């Protein structure tokens, strides 16, 4: 138990990721409100991005741009750009998902006049 706690203490990033992820899943499962479910989904997606960014962080590194007068490249000095590019693409996907989902939610609201899942399901019957 003490070892586990110690391991967690040295990995605050990981603790934050797990907390955010589970929190988002909890909101998605529990809340009957459609918009709140979306917020839960957004938190889950963001937590995955956080995981990716947290692992690609490198202390003392700089942006991977070479000045024109560089002769030798020391890879240890530069941050790895790939995870950040992945994150950027994943954010774009996330925004597109959010757009489609909000369009669906607003269509549901216009049709059934409610955002609560049980009320909408009652009106469908």
């Amino acid at each position, binding site marked *: 138990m003490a070892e586990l706690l110690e391991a967690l203490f040295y990995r605050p990033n990981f603790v934050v990721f797990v907390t955010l992820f589970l929190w988002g899943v909890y909101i998605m499962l529990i809340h009957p409100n459609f918009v709140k479910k979306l917020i839960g989904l957004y938190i889950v997606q963001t937590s995955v991005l956080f995981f990716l960014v947290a692992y690609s962080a490198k202390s003392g590194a700089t942006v991977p741009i070479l000045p024109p007068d560089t002769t030798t490249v020391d890879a240890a000095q530069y941050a790895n750009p790939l995870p950040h590019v*992945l994150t950027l693409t*994943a954010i774009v996907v996330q925004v597109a998902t959010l757009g489609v989902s909000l*369009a669906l939610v607003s269509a549901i609201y216009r049709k059934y006049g409610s955002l609560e899942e049980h009320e909408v399901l009652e009106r469908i019957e």
Partner: protein
Amino acid sequence: MSEHLPVFLFLVPFVTAVSLPIVGTRHPTWCRPLALGSVSLMSVLAIINVSVVAAHGEIRYAFGGWAAPLGIEWVDDGLAAIVILTVSLLALISLIYGEGDAGTARKQSPALYFTLILLLISALTGIALAADLFNVFVFLEVAALTSYALVGAAGGRALVSAFRYLILGSFGASLYLLGVSHLYVATGTLNMADVASRLPDLMTSSSVVSGFIFLFLGLSIKMALIPLHGWLPDAYSDAPGAVSPILASSVTKVALVAWLRIMFSVVGPGTEVGHVPVLELLDVLGIIAAVAGGVLALTQTDIKRMFAYGGISHVGLILIGASMGNATGFAGGVFYLINDAVMQAALFILAGAALHYYGARTLDDLRRVRDRSPWMTGGLVVAMMSMIGLPPTGGFFGKWNIVLGALQAESYAAVAAVVLSTLLTLAYFVKLLGCLFQRAPSSADAPVEVPMTLSVSLGVLSAAMIGLGLMSDPIISFFLEFAHRGGM
């Protein structure tokens, strides 16, 4: 020229999709011919692609001239070529059928409707071709987003089904991305071949193990593997009649193809990930899905939902075939996947047409149908034969090879599951036919007139189901060769 084929396969529907909203606002009547033309062109290219791949082997395409581990790579091999051919031909048939069964969405904004369908097709092509884990994620999401919008286009209760589909689908995509990040953290690369070359020493690393678990969970939501199938029956039964054939035939199958590719080109057949033999685990999951899907289909009263559960049970059958670890089972599984795509398209076209022309949504509604169309009854009988697996339809040869593979692997539980799922399929089709033929047609009733589009699409699909059976030998030996080259 032929080395650029994979990209053209993707670009043809994609460019049309992007230009349709611009052209369509000014000339709404051009949308349908443009969409049909672009999918036809894509089908022709897909046929050329299959023959090129069969003659010269796989095409590897490096984007922007950046070679494999650094750049994004597409691999156009036998599996991808055949899957793309199936997707494009089925999309063409669904578009032809869709004209007769045009819902409100299609009439209100034809440009946007065709844009979504073409984007879906191009994204499915991308998933089949991509040899890069992150590239697969992006295309999975494009395919998923268009599917949500297409399901929701029916309006009414379909909006809620689409929303649930969106929540579960996006959650699956997040899990997939999490899996990809785990693998990236462990191996430092995203290219499938490159990951595969670095994995053997890392198979017990907890990062790799959890990476594969997340990846598989994400893809199982997308392929509707029981017990993660919750979104599928509602989404497909509430989707517009013109859309559900293309969704049901392609989306889950292509997610399954993505998993097969990861399974066989990244993990490698017969490998243990963290001391767990992956293939045995998949075998068990496939058995559960095949039997449970059949049982659930038998309990349905809604026709579309019954067919949807039938498709879920077939995902299990394909997984059983692919997880036998020998070439026969793999070839049978992939051949069954192609068959299943055709069968699902035919069944959902039939269910959509039953709703449109008979007004029948449930089995009880079917009992009241008096004037049956010979086209639809004929199509149903052929589709039923293929679903149950009677020769000479393709379904028989797929199941036959899956069973042969299972016997070769001495996995008798898998054989029993295939037989049991076949019996369950027979049971729910008997239930369906019992309702349809309960009332004898009186001679005074003329059969329902169905439009050309429906009879053509049903005729082509029925011919395809029988043709796949008659042509099964060359196709299965093509996949056998593919599996042998993959090291099985």
